[in-house]
């Protein structure tokens, strides 16, 4: 029986762009180019490797986001995923992390799954809690923040490198996995992959398809409220010296003046 893998991905504003907030204090998506969150590429990569090792597997990439979020799906498809689901609905604007996990969980259940793979965090919100939230909502094991992952005989195993220890984890499928940027370099889409991606199916679902009420999500339905967003003042220009042989001593003098020595 085919191993059904769902990879959750996010379309984010380019971190190297001039990111800022819109008037309603949501992430401004109009003025900065968007792309597939870099950390989700690692999730797609691990899904592809697990699928290659399985006898029979199918990878679905799933995103929740505005129209442009299709770009993120296309990128994942060009890397080698088989099909895509785009959850898009005007009422989703401003949805917070709890709401997002609700939408993703309903979509994952509707799609059908044995294994969910996510990145460790998005590069815009950076909370890193969606995988744990999905495991909670789906009622399946959470096997998260893995630097190494493998699936064999219906069991997922992996290594989680924590602050105080490195742990080996094991759980039965179905399960939710998240992988770190240490899990293995993500492949670049090949020309063939890019061409093939254009023919791969992308389904669009809205809130009604997922039987979610509009007031459960969006800015009004959010479980949190942002009251203000202030640009951090630029740091005042410091002293820059060129090392003419005494640079280390000059620096020591500065540090002593600041009472660090």
């Amino acid at each position, binding site marked *: 029986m085919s191993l059904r893998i769902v990879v959750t991905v996010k379309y984010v504003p380019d*971190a190297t762009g001039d990111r800022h907030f819109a008037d309603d204090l949501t992430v401004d998506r109009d003025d900065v180019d968007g792309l597939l969150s870099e950390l989700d590429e690692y999730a797609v990569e691990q899904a592809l490797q697990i699928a290659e090792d399985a006898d029979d597997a199918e990878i679905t990439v799933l995103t929740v986001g505005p129209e442009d979020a299709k770009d993120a799906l296309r990128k994942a498809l060009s890397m080698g995923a088989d099909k895509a689901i785009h959850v898009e609905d005007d009422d989703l604007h401003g949805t917070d992390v709890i709401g997002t996990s609700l939408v993703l969980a309903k979509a994952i259940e509707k799609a059908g799954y044995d294994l969910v793979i996510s990145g460790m965090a998005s590069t815009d919100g950076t909370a890193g809690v969606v995988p744990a939230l999905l495991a909670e909502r789906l009622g399946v094991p959470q096997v998260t923040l893995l630097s190494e992952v493998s699936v064999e005989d219906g069991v997922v195993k992996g290594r989680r490198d924590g602050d105080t220890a490195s742990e080996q984890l094991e759980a039965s499928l179905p399960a939710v996995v998240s992988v770190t940027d240490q899990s293995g370099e993500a492949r670049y889409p090949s020309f063939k992959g890019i061409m093939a991606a254009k023919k791969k199916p992308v389904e669009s679902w809205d809130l009604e398809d997922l039987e979610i009420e509009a007031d459960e999500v969006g800015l009004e339905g959010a479980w949190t409220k942002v009251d203000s967003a202030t640009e951090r003042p630029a740091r005042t220009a410091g002293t820059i010296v060129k090392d003419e042989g005494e640079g280390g001593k000059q620096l020591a003098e500065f540090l002593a003046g600041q009472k660090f020595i």
Partner: protein
Amino acid sequence: MAEVLVYVDHVDGAVRKPTLELLTLARRIGEPVAVALGSGAENTAAALAEHGAVKVLTHDAAEYADYLVVPKVDALQAAVEAVSPAAVLVPSSAEGKEIAARLAVRIGSGIITDAVDLEAGDEGPVATQSAFAASFTTKSRVSKGTPVITVKPNSAAVEAAPAAGAVEALSVSFSEQATGTKVTARTPRESTGRPELTEAAIVVSGGRGVNGAENFSIIEALADSLGAAVGASRAAVDAGWYPHTNQVGQTGKSVSPQLYIASGISGAIQHRAGMQTSKTIVAINKDAEAPIFDLVDYGVVGDLFDVVPQLTEEIKTRKG
């Protein structure tokens, strides 16, 4: 006064510093009630009492060590039900955030992650967060349910505030999901004898310019002269020169020390995201155009192999 639950991060009863910082923040909102789980939980009480915990709820069971995250969520949920707190505060470690997130769904609450400050407000606690690689500061609050907030290390000072700290046994029954993910082996990190990266007052980091694993010894020597933690940029970690656990940046640790010294680090957005909120920033780099110099209080344009050893020697001399 309303009670505020504080989840205790400890290693065999030794309370980690970020938890003591949480007690400082919790006292701004109400009376801290600590929740300590697992082996040595009862031994946390003295330190927690000294820093303001009026009660310490404890529970030990093999499940906390043998299975991932969920047993702790079950226990924290039991504590929420027993106490009906005004808020739940959890240290922003990887595990802390996961525990907090699952708890929030269970109790029908919103969650705020990675707060860097917290104050009481008319409509509940107001959390300050850094956004977009610390180029923005936001103020947010949880608008549904009991606020669940995770707080980053170094967000508040540790303050002595003696309180009763009475130990009470917490009654916990584990859910069906508790044993879903088994921890089959655990290898503790080897101690380097240096401070924990996220908790250190001074961090000395090396990047691409260090040019080799063996050269990190000069970064370590500088760190040791200052009693600092050692960090590394993603470039240095990806090259295999230094362990990922020491990576500072978006996909590594984010640090906010009193002093940050960047050596051979250009200052890409990925790195800035993890260190931009440091109080004083110093950089040493060959390239005068490196973006890191936009952030510094003091910068030296020069070869780190000349500047860093000279700095280390000078510090040692001055310290005698």
